[in-house]
């Protein structure tokens, strides 16, 4: 019996060694853990395109602070404080997979791919097309599918290099900024990689991603980038994106204002729910979008009092204002952008059939879109000053 036990233990040890031999395990300080990456493109004159994909990696530094005085034996305290900051590792190559080789040449530690929280794609790269990038990301099983995709103005490297106070890297800052943006502007927060995979392949759906700029010494979320297929076509400023998000998302939160002068306005912080109905008459489609707003009056300097009559008057005025905002945006969408950025094609495809060869962008832009708005006031705060 004893021999059997010894043999078993020996076998287990041997097998463990053979199997774990190829396993690379090292402490995190000896690895380059990446928090974000950017995608830039250099279009050369010969027609070649060079991909530049900088990685932001964490740097784990130790700062040693010596304690004050040395009078008592106890006070010989030396604290080692770990400080996190970040660095950029550059990589340039003619294909995205090859940038990995180039990147490792610029790095002293092994680089882990797939841990990224955000990716910043430069405007130029997005207009060129993100399909190649999505291909390699999708194929990698270790990719963080809940990472966020953003578009940056100018070069992605500049945005990643930008030092933000209090954050280890700008990637962490951007990640927090976009995740928390859903509180206002009717932003839906559906900008993760999973959403990108689904949007690129769904009939009647067009991708929309956050647009970042370095403005006034900080990185700000200034608008939304509109995609047609996998190429970026337009960038919408935040006021227009707000209306688009209102009409596009399943629900959202934002602030709407009735303003009659620099000091007379009402601020209405509302949550919106959307319903879409689709009809087809011969070749022309009709969409009815119902928006249900329910929210609080945050601030009222327009009316002296909010009484019953004022309430319904406010609701009607707000409804008219929102309808006008939506109709203005719809006019622009149909005539200037000519892209179905509200994903109305999805509803039509669900009702009338998929893969029928219909170009939903064209059909939706030639269709009648009607917006019906309902506004309801929920709470009014503590009182009016």
């Amino acid at each position, binding site marked *: 019996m004893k021999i059997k036990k010894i043999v078993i233990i020996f076998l287990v040890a041997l097998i463990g060694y053979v*199997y774990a031999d190829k396993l690379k395990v090292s402490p995190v300080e000896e690895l380059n853990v990446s928090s974000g990456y950017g995608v830039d493109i250099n279009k050369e004159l010969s027609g070649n395109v060079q991909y530049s994909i900088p990685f932001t990696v964490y740097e784990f530094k130790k700062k040693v602070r010596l304690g004050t005085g040395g009078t008592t034996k106890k006070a010989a305290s030396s604290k080692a404080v770990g400080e996190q900051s970040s660095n950029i590792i550059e990589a340039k190559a003619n294909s995205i997979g090859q940038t990995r080789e180039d990147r490792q040449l610029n790095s002293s530690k092994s680089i882990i791919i797939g841990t990224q929280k955000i990716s910043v794609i430069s405007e130029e790269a997005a207009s060129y097309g993100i399909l190649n990038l999505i291909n390699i990301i*999708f194929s990698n099983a270790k990719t963080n*599918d*809940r990472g966020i995709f953003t578009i940056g103005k100018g070069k992605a490297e500049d945005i990643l290099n930008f030092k933000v106070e209090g954050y280890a890297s700008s990637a962490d800052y951007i990640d927090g900024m976009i995740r928390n943006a859903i509180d206002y502007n009717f932003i839906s927060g559906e900008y993760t990689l*999973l959403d990108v995979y*689904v949007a690129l*392949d769904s009939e009647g759906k067009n991708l929309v991603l956050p647009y970042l700029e370095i403005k006034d010494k900080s990185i700000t979320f200034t608008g939304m980038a509109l995609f047609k297929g996998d190429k970026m076509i337009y960038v919408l400023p935040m006021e227009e994106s707000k209306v688009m998000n209102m009409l596009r998302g399943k629900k959202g939160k934002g602030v709407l204002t009735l303003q009659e002068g620099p000091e007379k306005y009402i601020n209405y912080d509302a949550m919106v729910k959307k319903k879409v109905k689709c009809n087809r008459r011969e070749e022309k489609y009709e969409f009815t979008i119902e928006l249900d707003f329910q929210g609080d009056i945050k601030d009222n300097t327009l009316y002296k009092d909010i009484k019953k009559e004022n309430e319904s008057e406010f609701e009607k005025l707000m409804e008219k204002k929102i309808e006008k905002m939506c109709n203005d945006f719809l006019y622009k969408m149909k005539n200037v952008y000519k892209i179905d950025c509200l994903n109305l094609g*999805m*509803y039509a495809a*669900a009702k009338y059939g998929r893969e029928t060869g219909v170009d939903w962008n064209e059909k939706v832009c030639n269709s009648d879109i009607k917006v019906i708005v309902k506004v309801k006031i929920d709470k009014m705060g503590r009182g009016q000053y």
Partner: protein
Amino acid sequence: MDKAKKNLLEENEATALLVGFIIGTGILSLPNGVVQYAKQDGWIAVIIGGLHPLYIALLAIYYAKKHPNQNILVLSNIYLGRILGTICNILFMVEFGIFTIEGIISVSNIFRVYATPFLTPIKIFIPTILLAIYLSDKGIKVLGKINKICLYLTVILTLVLLVSLKNGSYLNLFPIFGTGVKNIFNGSIESALAYGGMESIFLFYPFLKEKGKGKVKKITLKALFITMGIYTWVTFVCIYSLGYKVTSITLWPVLLVTESINLQALNSFRIVFLFLWSIVMFKIIANEHYAFTYILSDILKIKDKNKLYWFIFPITLYLCMGIKNEVQRRAILGYMVPKITLFIIAYISIIAILIFIKDKARK
């Protein structure tokens, strides 16, 4: 007599064993295959595909009624004669052999992509085959108990997929029946292949503890509904949250769906899911291997299974090494499994007809 009775299967264990022969590695890739033809109606195709195991279940009930103590190996010798019967038994055994190898390769592929890319295939094959041999050596009672645990695990894991519903849109399922009956039918043929394994009931219905009236009926129909329910639910969730196009691109759509479920400490639910699901995958390999060796020892009339294992191990290992990756595996399966399924259906139906004729003749 009591000791022999102890080794028989309880009703729950038999149901679990039957489900365990069907649900295994296939569930992770089933939505992919079905959606290629049936597109957004993949879940309907999966329901229709359930007709195949339903037919086998009904035949099994008939067999058990007429010959409650003789399994199909004995019956084929009785009704088809020694030579033809033995040939059919060998082909029956080959089916389980193919499913064993297919399961092992599938496990290896999934692990090498998602969990342990640093392992070479042979390092995964060897422990898996040894594990399958060890488990199947323990006998059917132990297998039944293991399957019972795995059944609970399967149901719980697939129910957790409910959480991913908040990330999808019901529009992905519409228009229902939009793909047309022909495409749904083709999709259901794909799913019928994933339902393969129901025929194992013919091997072990003599092992039931209680052979009363309607016991086999209860077991098979319960197992059928559980399997159909789980397969349909999984396909439904994949199409709902991903849409049919992404489902047809991913090799393992279910694992992509688990990525969208957020867990606090771990990056995604996929890790936990894969870890627990690997237990289910090992179980089906052990099941299929047990069926294979059971038939083999019956044909060769060898009681001591250990001698068989010495042969089976290297042959299985050699065959597993032949298939290089997932895409190749699915192509080969797509070629072989329809022929096997047709053979099984024909074979079982012919014997059923012969039983019927002999029964009538006796009366």
